C-alpha cells in the first residue's frame, strides 16, 4: 500500500519549528482522516498535528522532546490508492538542496525515502519547501556591504534594524527594505534625539548584547530608616545601598569582575556609580573608593555630584570607570525592576520602594508592621552565576539590615 507522509504543518505565521510533546498513536493503529495524533509545542502554544488521510500508521519517525522544522516528515500513514493519489497531487514539488523538502515524496506511489527525523541544526537549506515562512533565519543577521554602508551613513546600528521586516534570503533586510522603511518613517513625527538620549541608547544596546539576568529578594528598611534619623547629613536609601554594595564587594571583589575574551578582569578600586535621572536620560556619577569612604562622606560627595549634574557640569570621566552601579528605582514608586547593567560593568543593584507589610513576630505571636522593599541584582551571566550573585545580594541585605556598620 502507498504511504503518505505526515508533515509538520505551518503552525502559524513566523513559526519555524516545533517540539514533539505527545505521540498519541503507535505504528499499526488505524486512524481516520484529520485525526489529532501528535501534540507539538511551539513558542506560542501546544497544537495538534493531524493525519493527512485515513489509514494505518506505518511508522513514526520522530522522538518525544525533540524539535523539528516546519515541513519535516513526522511519520507515514499507509493509505488507500485514492487518498495517496489525491495527496500526491497536492504534494509540494521536490526542490534540490533542501533537506526538509527531500523528505516529501513528489509522488506518493514512489518508494519513500528512508525515514529519518530531521533535527534542528542539521539543516542547511534556507526555506522549508513551499512554505511562506522561512524555517531557518540564519540569513537574517547578514547585512550586505551596501546595507552596512547605508547604516554607517545614517549612523544606524543593528538594533535599529530590528523592527524592519526583511524580504531577502532568510528574511534578511535588503537595501530596498531599509530604504522603504526610511521612507515610511518620513510620514511620522520625528525629531532628533538629544545627545544624552543617544548616549543612553548606545550604552543599553551594547550592554544588551550580553546574557543578562536579574535576581531579587526583600530587605527590611526599618533599621535603615531609624539609623537615618540619627545621622547628619541624612543619607538617601540609595546611598545606604551603595555603601553596602561597596563593603560587600570589598570582601569579595571577584564578584564584580568582567569577562573579557577568555580573561576575568578585576578592578583594583571599588568605584561605584549611582544612577541619576537627568532630562531625557540618565547620568551615572561614580564615587571612587566607596568601600573606603564613610557613609557621611559619601553623602557629602553625592550632594556635590548631584549639584554638578544639575548644572550639567558633570564631566564624562566622572561617570566612567565604575565596577557596579546602584539604581534606586523606588523613588519612582516602583517595587521591582530588571535594570540593565552598564556595558562595561557586570553588576547593577536596584532598590524598590518601601511598603508597610505585616510581618509575623514569633516572640510576640502576632503580626507587626514592617517597612519592606525589594532589592534586585542584575548581572552579566558570563561573569557570575546565580549562586555567586545570590551570595553577594544576601550580604548586601545583611549589611543594610545592620546599618550601624555602614
Amino acid at each position, binding site marked *: 500500500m502507498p504511504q503518505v507522509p505526515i508533515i509538520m504543518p505551518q503552525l502559524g505565521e513566523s513559526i519555524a519549528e516545533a517540539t514533539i510533546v505527545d505521540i498519541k498513536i503507535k505504528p499499526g493503529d488505524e486512524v481516520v482522516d484529520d485525526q489529532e495524533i501528535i501534540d507539538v509545542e511551539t513558542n506560542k502554544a501546544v497544537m495538534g498535528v493531524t493525519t493527512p488521510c485515513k489509514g494505518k500508521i506505518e511508522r513514526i519517525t520522530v522522538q518525544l522532546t525533540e524539535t523539528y522544522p516546519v515541513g519535516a516528515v513526522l511519520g507515514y500513514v499507509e493509505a488507500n490508492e485514492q487518498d495517496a493519489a489525491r495527496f500526491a497531487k497536492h504534494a509540494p514539488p521536490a526542490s534540490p538542496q533542501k533537506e526538509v523538502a527531500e523528505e516529501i515524496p513528489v509522488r506518493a506511489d514512489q518508494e519513500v525515502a528512508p525515514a529519518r527525523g530531521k533535527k534542528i541544526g542539521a539543516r542547511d537549506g534556507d526555506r522549508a519547501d513551499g512554505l511562506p515562512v522561512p524555517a531557518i533565519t540564519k540569513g537574517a543577521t547578514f547585512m*550586505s*556591504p*551596501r*546595507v552596512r*554602508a547605508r547604516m554607517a551613513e545614517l549612523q544606524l546600528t543593528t538594533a535599529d534594524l530590528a523592527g524592519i521586516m526583511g524580504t531577502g*534570503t532568510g528574511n534578511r533586510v*535588503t*537595501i*530596498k527594505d531599509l530604504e522603504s522603511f526610511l521612507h515610511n518613517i518620513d510620514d511620522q513625527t520625528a525629531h532628533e534625539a538629544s545627545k544624552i538620549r543617544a548616549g543612553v541608547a548606545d550604552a543599553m544596546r551594547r550592554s544588551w548584547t550580553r546574557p543578562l539576568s536579574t535576581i531579587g529578594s526583600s530587605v527590611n528598611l526599618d533599621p535603615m530608616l531609624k539609623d537615618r534619623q540619627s545621622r547628619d547629613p541624612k543619607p538617601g536609601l540609595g546611598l545606604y545601598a551603595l555603601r553596602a554594595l561597596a563593603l560587600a564587594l570589598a570582601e569579595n571583589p571577584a564578584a564584580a569582575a568582567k569577562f573579557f575574551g577568555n580573561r576575568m578582569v578585576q578592578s583594583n578600586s571599588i568605584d561605584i556609580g549611582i544612577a541619576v535621572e537627568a532630562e531625557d536620560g540618565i547620568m551615572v556619577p561614580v564615587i571612587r573608593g566607596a568601600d573606603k569612604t564613610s557613609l557621611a562622606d559619601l553623602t557629602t560627595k553625592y550632594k556635590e555630584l548631584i549639584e554638578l549634574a544639575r548644572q550639567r557640569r558633570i564631566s564624562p570621566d566622572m561617570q566612567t570607570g565604575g565596577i557596579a552601579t546602584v539604581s534606586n528605582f523606588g523613588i519612582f514608586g516602583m517595587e521591582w525592576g530588571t535594570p540593565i547593567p552598564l556595558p562595561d560593568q557586570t553588576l547593577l543593584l536596584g532598590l524598590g520602594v518601601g511598603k508597610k507589610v505585616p510581618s509575623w513576630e514569633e516572640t510576640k505571636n502576632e503580626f507587626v508592621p514592617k517597612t519592606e522593599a525589594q532589592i534586585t541584582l542584575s548581572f552579566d551571566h558570563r561573569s557570575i552565576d546565580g549562586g555567586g550573585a545570590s551570595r553577594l545580594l544576601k550580604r548586601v541585605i545583611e549589611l543594610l539590615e545592620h546599618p550601624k556598620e555602614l
Partner: protein
Amino acid sequence: MSITYLEAIREAQARLLRHDDRVFIYGQDVGGTFGGAFKATKGLAKEFPKRVLNTPISEDAIVGTAIGAAMQGMRPIVEMQFADFSSIALNQILNNAGTHYWRTGVPVPITVRLPCGGTKGSGPFHSQTMESLYAHYPGLIVMTPATVEDAYTMLIEAVTIDDPVVYCEHKYLYYHLKADKLPDKGLPIGRARIAREGRDLTIVSYSAMTQESLAAAEELAREGFELEVIDLRTVKPLDTDAVLASVARTGRLLCVGESFPWGGTTAEVIARVTNQGFHLLDAAPQRLNAKDTPIPYHPNLWSAHRPNAKSIVAKARALLRE
C-alpha cells in the same frame, strides 16, 4: 533597407578602403571572388584591386607581415578565419604588436578581426571566444561589438587609432542581427552603453551575450523586475565607471560572458566592483560563463554549454531573491 551585422563589417571595410589609401585587407581567401570564409570581404577585391590580399595558411606570418606594414605607415586589417586559429599568431600579436610602441616609440596600428563565438555544431575549434585572453596583455585594445551599429563604427575606429586592436566579431550575430541603417558616429571607444535601463539588478555583458541578456531582461520584466543591461562594447579598456554607476542604482551585479569561466572579463568586472564599489552591493556579485570544458559539437550540448537567455533568467532570479 536592412543591414546585417556581417554586412556592417563589410561596409565598414569598404568605407575604410575608400577613404584611406593606407588601409589594406590581409587574410586567408579574403580576395579573389571568394570573399572570406564568412563573406565579410565579398566583392571588396573587385572594387579595390591589389588591396584585398590572400595569404598563405600561416597566422603567424600573416600578423607578422601586417605588423611590418603598420610600422611602415600602413593600416592593415587582418582577418582570421576563426578566432580559435589566432592562437598561432599569439607571439606576433602579444609579444610584437602589443609591446612595440612601449619598446620603440613606433606605433603598430594593425586591426586583427576575430570571428568569435559559438554557432550550433561548430565544436571546440570553431566556437571559442578569445577576448579575455587578449585583454590580459598590455598594449592591446579589445573590442566586442554587440550591435550592427557598433560593429560598423567600432571597426572604423579600430583602424583609425594607432594602437593594435583585436576586433572580436560574433559569428552568431552575423545574420541574426539587423539594423535599418548605419550610423555615422558611435560612442567613443572605451565607453560602455546602457542597453536597457533598470533598477533591480545590473547585468554586465558584451558581444552576443548582450543580446541574450536583453532577452532575459525582457522575460523578467513580465515578473515585474527591471534589469539594467550594460553592454561593455570594449572589454579593454573597461568602462568601470559605467558599471559602478549602474550597480549604484541597482545594488546587484551579474556578469555574463561566453568565454570559459576561469578568470576573464566577468571576473575582472567583479574584482573592480568589489574593490571600488563594495558598499554599493546588496548581494554577492555573480557571474555566468560557458562551462569549463571544450565546446561540444552537439547542438543540444552546445546550448547547455554557453549562457543563454534562459540560464541568465535563472541566475538573475536567484540573485534577485538574495
